[in-house]
């Protein structure tokens, strides 16, 4: 990344057509990113579009001889801030999507009109404010031996008070976030044993659902499984079939056999029938 940045910075300094190219590539992309953010239905998509905008802006900063700022933009903004956004989105609900229907009457077009008004006013106010070619930051940067050093001189020199204040701000922000996001536990946290226990108490013992055909001669979907005492496990048949009552009747001799196997009087052997090809019910003695 830094190599690209250095190259871009160099290119920007060397020839203005490089700067023009960079501009005419990055600017539309950033606008596109902003538009994408506004119109995306899913919140996560909006976050990604924002990231696009921000990276393009970082490149533009570098082109404008502010490499430090460009890097800070990538690291802090795109990196930290957008990741924070994504984390919160995950907590709130990743698949939360806005419906496109506007509930407040007139909001949409009024928003567009007024914002366009602001934009036009801004452009009218400052659109032509820079007269003449840009002075460029070469001299300033060179005076202190580089952009970072020059910025450092400014920040710890002239703007040291603002610097201290913003650091206090950061600390308070962190504290604030901790306090706001903190969840007071009024009851001790349940352990897994307790959770499982409560589940069983409420719903009763429940193992995994029986697959159709277990303990039965047939493994068709509509053949219900048999429980060890010979009764039908109605839940082993899919719900709609249960509702329709489309159950294949149980084989009576097979049933007796199962009971004998269960009581230990007999041993199960695989019958040679076309239906049971492939599947072995030979579970051995139970």
């Amino acid at each position: 990344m830094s190599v690209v940045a250095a190259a871009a910075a160099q290119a920007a300094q060397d020839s203005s057509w490089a700067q023009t190219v960079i501009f005419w590539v990055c600017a539309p992309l950033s606008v596109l990113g902003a538009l994408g953010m506004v119109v995306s239905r899913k919140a996560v998509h909006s976050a990604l579009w924002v990231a696009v905008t921000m990276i393009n802006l970082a490149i533009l900063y570098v082109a404008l001889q502010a490499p430090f700022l460009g890097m800070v933009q990538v690291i802090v903004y795109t990196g930290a801030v957008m990741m924070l956004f994504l984390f919160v989105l995950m907590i709130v609900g990743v698949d939360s999507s806005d419906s496109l229907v506007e509930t407040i009457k007139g909001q949409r077009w009024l928003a567009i009109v007024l914002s366009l008004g602001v934009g036009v006013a801004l452009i009218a106010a400052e659109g032509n404010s820079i007269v003449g070619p840009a002075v460029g930051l070469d001299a300033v940067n060179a005076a202190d031996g580089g952009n970072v050093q020059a910025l450092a001189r400014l920040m710890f020199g002239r703007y040291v008070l603002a610097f201290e204040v913003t650091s206090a701000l950061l600390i308070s922000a962190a504290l604030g976030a901790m306090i706001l996001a903190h969840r007071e536990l009024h009851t001790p946290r349940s352990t897994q044993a307790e959770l499982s226990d409560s589940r069983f108490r409420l719903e009763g013992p429940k193992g995994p659902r029986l697959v159709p055909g277990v303990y039965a001669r047939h493994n068709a979907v509509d053949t219900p499984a048999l429980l060890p005492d010979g009764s039908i496990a109605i839940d082993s048949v899919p719900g709609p079939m249960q509702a329709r009552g489309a159950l294949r009747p149980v084989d009576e001799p097979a049933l007796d056999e199962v009971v004998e196997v269960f009581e230990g009087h007999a041993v199960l052997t695989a019958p040679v029938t076309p239906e049971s090809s492939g599947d072995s019910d030979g579970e051995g003695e139970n």
Partner: protein
Amino acid sequence: MTTEVVQAASGVFSLAWLLVALPLFGAAVLLLGGRRTNAWGHLFAVLMSASAFVVGFIIFLSMLGKPAEERTYDQHIYDWIIVGKFQIPVTFHLDQLSITFVLLITFVGSLIHIYSIGYMAHDPDRRRFFGYLNLFVASMLLLVLANNYLLLYVGWEGVGLASYLLIGFWYARPAAAVAAKKAFVVNRVGDMGLSIAIMIMFVTFGSVTFGAVDAGVGQADSTTVTWLGLALLLAACGKSAQVPLQSWLFDAMEGPTPVSALIHAATMVTAGVYLIVRSSAIFDLSTTARNFVIGVGLVSLLFGAIIGCARDDIKKALAGSTMSQIGYMVLAAGLGPAGYIFAIFQLVTHGFFKADLFLGAGSVLHGMKDRQDMRRYGALRALMVITFVTFIAGYLAIIGVPPFSAFYSKDDIVRAAVTQNWFAGAATLIGAGITAFYMTRMVIMTFYGKARWEGDEHPHESPFVMTIPMMVLAIGAAVSGFALVNIGSIVSWLEPVTGFVESDPPIGDALLKVITLALVAIGVGIAVAQYGRREVPAVAPTAVSPLTKAARVDLYGDAFNEAVFMRPGQYLTRVLVFFDNKIIDGAVNGSAALIGGLSGRWRRWQTGYVRTYALSMVGGVCLVIAVLLLVRL
């Protein structure tokens, strides 16, 4: 118009404040003291009222001792309202006019206080009654002693309040409560006139003191003066129960009889006349206003008389009589300088004889277990002798038989009216005839004829505490006219205040007197023929002339008020309530519902979806960048 110098009160005259303070103190003690003062409250009230009379009499005597130009005093108590140019001091103005009123109010008032001790002896709320009486006396004195219109208004409102409290004294009685409310509301309409007048005065003259108004009225423009006069006339109508604001007076008879005697005969209802006479400077300058005054007086004169002819309730008949007599006074005041003094003269004599008549009626009521229907009286003259004699004194006075008092005062008015205005003159003459008729009817129905009462009345003479005031008033009714013309001239007494113009009737003074007396005799004769010779039916006959039917319902006064004011007013309130409920509430609730509805709609943005929220965020970003771009461009 005053031709005298106003002096600051000193010596005896500085006791003027006691005139208001003493009865006010009495009212405060009785009303605030509550039940603790029940035992001696009535006596205390009589003491306060009598002391006010004593002070007034002393001031009067001192005033008599001064020459005519030096009888005006102002006692400044304190400055009440000082707001820029609007300055209202509390100052008591003593001059001949106000002291006349003071003497009338305190003298008649004190007598009625004494009378009430007996009349209200069985009433558990007697103390409250005396408290209100004192309050009334204090307010009335404030009214006549004020030196500016706003302070007068305070007294004006005070007497209105006292009238309300006293008419509705037996507040548990629905009729009394409604009557009190009606009196207050109708008075309020008149009070609006006074408020407007005060406002016009302030705007025109910059001050509302009598002196400023009298001085400034010469320079004011004539429409302003006319409007002032009309506004003051409206106020006077309200207080003096003249048309169109007369409807409350008849309902006011729901109050105890001493109230009717004091307030609705002698004093409060004369406040309107006082106001007009006090504002003589204004009325002198406005013929239109004076004509309106004459018109109002004329109509009320006849109205009251006609109503008095048909009412069977003795107090309501006397109320009609009051309205009519005040009509005389108002008419006289409307005649200008020729009549002002006679209006006051009639006012004083009327105070005596009407109070006497009312107290007599009260005495009859007292003996007849408060039955007021004259058709149930009859033949009382043997059983209530003192009452009968005093009542007859008042009766002779009111119809103007010489030498009783109203012969002098009413004749002066007739003479002045005939001189100036044929209508007014004719009305006064006819009024005299009708007065004779209804008063004779009243006397016959009450004291003569057969005894028509059934049931358990035992008519008896009233106790001395009630009959002595009646006797004093009867003496006053008999001699006051003679005294005020021949012993001391009321004309020369009051002339410096109001001005006087001698009236020379075209048909001669003596002939006029003869015509008046002839009309009186005809009235008496008709009444005697109708009621004396025939039997008075115990139940009012229904087959009567339309005029009688109308007179029985106060000449449709109440019906008119109801149709013109009350029903539209009710309708207006209903419209306003409807408007308030549907439109204003509808708008408010509607906006709330609107917002609620809008929110209900917009709430649907909250779908709860993160993506729609994100969408709106993006939309916002778009918008922001676009705006930034536009700004930069």
